[in-house]
């Protein structure tokens, strides 16, 4: 079993007006096998937390720690974090010119595993995973995310999740922009990844719909750069009914 531990994390970004604090002391521990849902209003810092875990250079950690089984994640380069078993399914996956999906997937798998996968098995695995996620096989020869629709990009993120088998997956609004069928397809993919390999999941979402397919063990309410409340799956239903009003400062 592995543990991803975030302790009193403070993160700021450089803006034109100077440094701005976005995360104001986040603490959260995720163990493999657990699913944590994170919900919260727009701009509360959910993507900031996700990107900080992945190591995006825009985010400056001013204090606090992130550790993976005791190892200092913040000291690792972005690629090293991925090789250590962290995976971020991005809210807005990036289009990479000139690199075919096939080439990209193989290169990434090789980097993560430390050796090239056996070509025969790998090709089979990729095909099967694509079929499961109802991704047109033709996508394999297209450039990474280039010209993919919003929903297609999300599926391709989950394709990678299934193929790379991380210890911890952070899914940043993977459900946004998916149609009803795609939501089910993607949720099945996440569940397969969670079952197949022992995986811990941080699921950032605005909607309880996906939580019907991916059952959270814990729900965290994120407000203004902090976790304002934690609870079980029922907290999500309550949020859906009541909104975030009671967490927001009076008069805001």
């Amino acid at each position, binding site marked *: 079993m592995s543990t991803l531990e975030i302790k009193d994390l403070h993160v700021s970004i450089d803006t034109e007006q100077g440094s701005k604090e976005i995360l104001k002391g986040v603490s959260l521990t995720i163990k493999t096998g657990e699913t944590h849902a994170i919900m919260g209003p727009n701009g509360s810092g959910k993507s900031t937390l996700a990107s900080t875990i992945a190591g995006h250079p825009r985010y400056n950690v001013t204090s606090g720690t992130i550790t993976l089984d005791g190892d200092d994640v913040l000291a690792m*380069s972005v690629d090293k974090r*991925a*090789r250590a078993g962290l995976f971020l399914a*991005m809210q807005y996956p*990036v289009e*990479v*010119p*000139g690199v075919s999906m096939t080439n990209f997937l193989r290169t990434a798998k090789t*980097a993560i595993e430390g050796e090239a996968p056996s070509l025969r098995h790998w090709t089979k695995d990729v095909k099967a995973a694509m079929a499961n996620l109802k991704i047109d096989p033709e996508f394999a020869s297209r450039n990474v995310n280039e010209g993919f629709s919003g929903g297609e990009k999300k599926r391709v993120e989950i394709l*990678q999740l299934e193929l790379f088998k991380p210890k911890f997956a952070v899914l940043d609004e993977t459900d946004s922009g998916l149609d009803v069928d795609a939501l089910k397809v993607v949720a099945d993919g996440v569940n397969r990844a969670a079952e197949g390999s022992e995986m811990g999941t941080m699921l950032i979402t605005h909607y309880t719909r996906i939580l019907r397919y991916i059952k959270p063990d814990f729900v965290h309410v994120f407000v203004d750069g902090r976790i304002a409340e934690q609870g079980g799956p029922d907290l999500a239903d309550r949020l859906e009914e009541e909104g975030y009003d009671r967490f927001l400062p009076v008069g805001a």
Partner: protein
Amino acid sequence: MTDTATETTGKESRYGVPAIAGFTEEGENLSPLNEDSSPLGGDASKAHSHGGGAGVPDSSRAGRLTSYKLEDFKALTGREEDWRFTPLKRLGGLHKKAPTGAAPTLATELSDGATLETVGMDDARVGSAGIPEDRVSANGWNAAAEASVLTIGANAEDVKATLTYTGAGMEASAQHLVVVAEPNSRGLVVIDHVGSAVLIENIEFDVQEGAELTVVSVQAWEDDAIHAGSQQAKVGENAKIKHIVVTFGGDLVRLTPSARFAGTGAKVEMFGLYFADPGQHLEHRLFVDHSTPHCTSNVLYKGALQGKDAHTVWVGDVLIRAAAEGTDSYEANRNLVLTDGSRADSVPNLEIETGNIAGAGHASTTGRFDDEHLFYLQSRGIDEKTARRLVVRGFLNEVIQQIGVEELQERLNETVEAELAATDN
């Protein structure tokens, strides 16, 4: 600022039959330089950008002066439509003085079916497929003492010729080469440029009836070389030329490959690959002149740029004349900007004078490899060096694959590696 030149922009279009005969499709212009009213975007370019092609002779590629006589060309100011991107100061005087130095030495490797002769400039084959299109080319034509003529014999198959030009110094020189692909021959000609030189080069390709000629011109010069090259093809009935340009060496390289059709059913493919490092100016100006019916042309040039003041220019003129019914033509230029401070200019120009064509289109994109691309790839475990390599190799591979000569492809892959390694630190 040169920002607009490095933004990700895209433009694609493909036309079947244009609505109006004489319709001119204006290419996208990615350079702020081009948008400047004066002095760099003078009257000609303004008239040009209005399109319509209505009686603006000097805006049409058809109106460009060609002549064997140097004195027919005016002295260059740098404001001419076809010189406005070229830093004349770095041209080593090739536009001013007659080049009198010794031309690069030529080493050849010829298979059966290929013969090489050295002839006087009065030989009938000189000028059979080309005519200077600018002052520099005419200057070289006038100054060349002799020409090499490479002939691929009629009906010969699998002919291969490698011509390696090694520049020996920085004294301005001129050289002339004529490649004759006789009827129904099949040949591959590799023209390799290495060493240091200040050179005006005129190359003619006479691709005769039913012949298929593949040309690979590699500009692998030392860092200081200056090279102004005209490469013109005349393509006969049912003949085909595949012309591939690979440019990565030299301080300033300016090539003007062009293709003209001398019969119906001819086919032209032009591929190019360039890789510009800090301070390099690599310019490619193409011209495909469709003047006969039922010919096809396909152009794809791809370039990568890295470092401060790496500058590439690509201009693709495609002219489909009234007589060129049934033409099918496509041209594309794609650039990948790897670092800040580099600049890619890309200008496709498509002029269509007949409504009766099979298709004509153009595309121009300049993409940027930026921190977000890098982050995405790294977040999948790929280290920075590998990420950069992945992107550049993938991008250039489309053109490298076209070469079809394994040793050469390998050499180019190695070159790309070396170029990338240069910025690793």
